[in-house]
């Protein structure tokens, strides 16, 4: 029997979440900010699956179902977000989020 329990996975999720938040807060590159968002979503996924394994018990799959939904929505978010980044780059010639503060040209 392994001695790895629920808090280990929750701490890994916490580290992932906080590093993703640091990425979102400190980056100036818009693509970097999207990578931080992916880290935060992965932290949520780790927590979902850990709770599904340790708390919900065998035979029930709610956590895994929601992790699949999170992955689907993360893919959609990445597609739309990177398309917006490319559109911003075509308009402003930069993806520095401190310089792109207009919705028009």
């Amino acid at each position, binding site marked *: 029997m*392994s*001695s*790895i*329990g*629920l*808090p280990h*996975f*929750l*701490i*890994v999720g*916490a*580290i*992932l*979440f*906080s*590093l993703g938040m*640091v*990425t979102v*807060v*400190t980056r*100036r*590159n818009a*693509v970097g900010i999207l*990578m*931080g968002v*992916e*880290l935060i979503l*992965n932290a949520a*996924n*780790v927590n979902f*699956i850990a709770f599904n*394994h*340790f*708390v*919900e*018990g*065998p*035979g029930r*799959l709610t956590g*895994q*179902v929601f*992790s*699949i939904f999170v*992955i689907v*929505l993360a*893919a*959609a978010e*990445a597609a*739309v977000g*990177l*398309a*917006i*980044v*490319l559109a911003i*780059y075509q308009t402003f*010639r*930069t*993806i*520095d989020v*401190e310089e792109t503060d207009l919705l028009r040209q």
Partner: protein
Amino acid sequence: MADVPEIRPSDPRRSAPRVREPRRTIAEGLLRVGMMLAGLMVGVGVLGARLLSGQPLGPIALLALYLAVTAFVFGLNGFAFRRLPLGWGPWLFLFSAALFGVLFLLGYLVGGVAGPFVVDAANRVIPYVKLADAVFYLFAVMTCGGAGGCAFSRNIIYSAWSLLFALLGAAGLYVFLGADFPAVVQVLVYVGGVLVLILFAIMLTKQIGEDPKLTNTHVGFPAGIALALVTVATLAYTAIMAPWKVVAERSWEPTASRLGNAFLTDYLLPFEIASVVLLAALIGAVVIARKEIKETSDVAL
């Protein structure tokens, strides 16, 4: 020598004058070789005595091992690490302390995993670390290290590659938790789709890397690190102290078929909504990222 015209004056490594290294005397070389051999012998002797007697490492043995590592590093510094500024100063002791820590961790893990196999059963059978725990820590370090590289790397390409390690480590954690289908979906969708998309977006846009200050001007790295520490402390305290209702039994059954049944019975409406969201997101991405051709544009794309 100094009148040779520089070919690339912008390169600082070319324009800097070459510093001649001081010649090493034979006595110094012999001293370094002797120190290296002495460190090696002391280290092997302490470890061998500890392995033969079966006693745990005391503080005196640890100090001897640290001094042995220091002597070995000092000896090796004369040959392989000639460029490292390691004299007799504090940097030598700091560097050897770091190396000693790494070696101690490696020895701890190896002794825990392989200890019961190399030592007699009558001598000492309690391993520090089980193999499953070592695998978990491997994946956890991979995930957290990848996330740290993604957060703190200067180059955005390196951040993307670090994100690859974070995503793969998270997939390994899913397997560790008996979630095989989410792990495969993680590898397929994240590593195969999202990460490739991010790399495309990085390479299609101009980098901000002309100035070395890559963080934004309102929140820098110190504030970011403070924020990370506070968040990790709060969440870890909650995760450890909260009385989670952990069930006793675990299951490592394959979950793909049961997940499919769940998606088509209990979660049918969210499933359909998710598919509509995906369709809308793809159409929206195509519409947004479509290159508009303007007559007035004089920028050659």
